[in-house]
C-alpha cells in the first residue's frame, strides 16, 4: 500500500507540475502576443470609474461649499 501511495505521489506531483509548467508557458506566450498586438493595453490602468466619480462628487460638494463661503 505504501508503494501505491508513492505512485500516487509521483502522479500527483507530476500533474501539478505539468499543469503549472504549461500555465507558465502559455502565460509567457500570451504575454508576448499581447505585447505585440495590444501594446496599448499595457498602459497604467486608470482608477475604477466608480471611486473616481465618488471623488468627483466629493470635490464638487467641497468646491460648492467653498464657493458659497467665499461669496458670503
Amino acid at each position, binding site marked *: 500500500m505504501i508503494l501505491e501511495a508513492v505512485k500516487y505521489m509521483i502522479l500527483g506531483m507530476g500533474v501539478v507540475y505539468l499543469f503549472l509548467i504549461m500555465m507558465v508557458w502559455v502565460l509567457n506566450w500570451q504575454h508576448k502576443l*499581447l505585447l505585440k498586438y495590444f501594446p496599448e493595453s499595457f498602459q497604467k490602468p486608470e482608477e*475604477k470609474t466608480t471611486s473616481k466619480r465618488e471623488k468627483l462628487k466629493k470635490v464638487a460638494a467641497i468646491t460648492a461649499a467653498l464657493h458659497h463661503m467665499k461669496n458670503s
Partner: protein
Amino acid sequence: MKKRLLTFFLALSFFLIPLGVLATVNHMASNETHKEVQTENKSFGSLLLNFYKQTGIYAFLSPKEGVKNAKGDEISKFQQSFGRIIMIAICFVLFYLAIAKGFEPLLLIPIGFGGLLANIPLANIIGDGGFIGELFKAGIANELFPILIFMGVGAMTDFGPLLANPKTALLGAAAQFGIFGTLVGAVALSQFGIFDFSMQDAAAISIIGGADGPTTIFIASKLAPDLLGAMAVAAYSYMALVPVIQPPIMRALTSEEERKIRMTTRRQVSKLEKMMFPLTVLVLTILILPESSPLIGALTFGNFVRESGVVERLSKTLQNELINIVAIFLGLAVGSKLAAEYFLVPETLGILLLGLVAFSIGTAAGVIMGKIMNKMSKEPINPLIGAAGVSAVPMAARVANRVGMESDPTNVLLMHAMGPNVAGVIGSAVAAGVLLSIF
C-alpha cells in the same frame, strides 16, 4: 489586555471543570440512583421531574448507553457527558484564538459557535429540521458553500503578481509536496499500525497541506465526511498559525546570503492579460484535469467577473454579500462536526498531527524549490518566497516578506511572494482534482 483575557478564560474553565468532574463521578454512580428516582414523584412533582430530565444538567450528569444523536449516530456515555464539556471548552479556545489572537476570525467564530450549538444535549440543532442541519444539507452535503466561497476568493484575488513573473508559479507547485508527501507518510504510519486511516482518509487529510480552507472542506465532504470537522479546524488553525510554523523552517533551510537576495523588477501586466488569465487557467483545467473544474471553475469565474470590468455589481456581490452570507452558513454547518461524537475520536489527533506535518513539508518543499530555481535561473530568486507557495493568501506572502526583512530591512519581497502565493491556490486545486480522479 490579551494576557488577562487568557486568565479570564482560564477562570471560566474553573466554572466548567467542576461540572465535568461532577459528570464523571455521576457517570459512575448513575446506574444505581436511576431507578429510585423514577417511581418517587407524581403529579406536579412528576412534571418537574420530567422537566428536569429535559435539562442539559441532567443530560450531562446522567449519560445513557445507546443514545443516538439527531442524525442517528450513536453517542458514547463519555461523549454525552465529559466529552461535550471538553468540546464546549475547545470552542471557547477557538473564540479566544479568533478574538485575542486574530486567527481567521471570519471562519473560526462561526465554526466555534456551530460547535457550541452542536454539543447541546437534547436539542436537535444539527439533525433534520434543526437549523444547522438544514444549513448543512443546503450547502455542505452538495458542496455548494465551499464552491461559492471559492467564487468570492476568485473575485477578491489579484493574479497580477503571478502574471508579472509567471515562473514563480513553480514554487506553488513544489509546495503541493506537502499534500502528496503526507499522503505517503500517513499510509506508511497506518501500515505500521500507528494510525488507522484508509487510503482514502489519508488522501483527504493530506489536503490540509494545501493550506486552503474551501478546498479542504470540499475534499473532506467528498472523500471523508466524518473527518470534516477536525480537518476544517486543523486547516484554518494552521493557516492562522503560518507566522508561527513557517519562519523556523525557512531559516533552517536557507543561508543568510540567500535570504538577502534581492529580486529584479517584475514585468508589466496588461489589463487584457489579467482578463485572459482565468480563461487560460480554465481551458488548461478542461484539457488536463476536468476533475478540478468545480474548484478551479469557481475560482476563475470569480476572477473573470472581477477582471472583465463590466460587471462591477456582480464582482462586489461575490466579494461581499455572497461570501459573507455563505461564510456564516458554512462556518455554522462545519461547526456541527465539532459535536463530541464526531470530534472526540482517536482519528482527530492523527488529523491534527498529519495536518501540521503536511504544512511543514509544503513549506520546506517550497523553500527548497526556491533554492533550486535560484541556481538554475538567470534572474536571482530569493528562496524565502517559496514558502509562500503553500497558499494561505496573503498571510504566507507577508511572512516571507518579514523573514526576508530580518536579514535585509530594505529588501521588500511582498509582491514577489504574492506570485507563488496565488499559484499555490491553483496548485492545491489541481492536487485536489488528482485526488478526486484517483478515489
